[in-house]
């Protein structure tokens, strides 16, 4: 096959799905349904500007500001909108709080619904069949594989996301962080702790 040559006489041939995506983009652009500049803008936003640090910002503020925390748990949408973290798909956000009594964990058994504005694009494991099926069936086992061991008296509650409702876990504030400010606390909030497959890091 010519493209197996070491010195690549022609441009490296993209994979079949990559060619199909190019075809879609070309046809839709020709029809005026798609603006290539808008596509670049969306990619740039998700690659560089939206990520778990948005969610960490929300969590850290909830740890230091009781009034904010109460409002966030009561009705997250207006609170998040005020911070600029609203969904592109018009989804409804619900924040669920971890306590000594209950540990929350988020999954999407249907596909991979995820709070994009707060956490960015989901990691591969969140989209895998294994996580989607097992987190509902055997959440404690899945948590153990993520290195999360909970006391026996802590209940595990699994929230199944949909296209309309997305969940963010508010992890417990680690002990010994009383003196830290919002910015320092943000660094303790991992992506996994906001999905519920991890805990906030102790300083």
């Amino acid at each position, binding site marked *: 096959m*010519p*493209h197996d040559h070491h*010195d*690549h*006489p*022609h*441009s*490296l*041939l*993209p*994979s*079949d*799905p*990559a*060619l*199909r*995506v*190019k*075809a*879609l*983009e*070309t*046809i*839709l652009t020709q*029809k005026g*349904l*798609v*603006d290539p500049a*808008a*596509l*670049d803008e*969306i*990619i740039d936003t*998700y*690659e560089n500007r939206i*990520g778990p640090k948005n969610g960490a910002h929300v969590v850290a503020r909830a740890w230091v500001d009781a009034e904010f925390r109460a409002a966030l748990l009561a009705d997250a949408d207006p609170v998040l909108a005020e911070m600029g973290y609203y969904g*592109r*798909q*018009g*989804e409804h956000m619900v924040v669920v709080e971890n306590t000594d009594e209950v540990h929350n964990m988020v999954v999407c058994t*249907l*596909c*991979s*619904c995820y709070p994009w504005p707060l956490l*960015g*694009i989901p*990691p*591969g*494991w*969140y*989209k*895998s*069949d*294994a*996580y989607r099926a097992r987190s509902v069936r055997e959440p404690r086992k899945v948590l153990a594989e993520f290195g999360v061991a909970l006391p026996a008296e802590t209940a595990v509650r699994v929230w199944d996301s*949909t*296209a*309309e409702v997305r969940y963010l876990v508010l992890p417990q504030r680690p002990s010994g962080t009383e003196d830290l400010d919002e910015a320092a606390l943000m660094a303790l909030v991992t992506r996994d702790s906001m999905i519920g497959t991890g805990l906030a890091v102790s300083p």
Partner: protein
Amino acid sequence: MKPEPVFEAPWHAQLFALTVHLNEAGHFAWPDWAERFGATLKRHGLTRTLNGGDDYFLAWLETLETLLTETGAAEAEALTDMRNAWETAYLNTPHGAPVTLD
């Protein structure tokens, strides 16, 4: 702490952006998309375990192609022709030169 790459392959990002863009432009509602995509994943998952990487976006691509074919935004035959035209363009373009359609 080094962040993981957001998209594993450029075409994942391109496909994601295309879908978000079409949704925002009002070509389909997100719940409808999620339902179709979930059905595709379920169908694929019956024969093998999906790992959430390439196979996840392959299911995504199949869903979007089918959806756009059904709405008439893109005809299946035109998509195949365009895919093959891009393949030919890559094969006929010297390495390092920009690849364009004739």
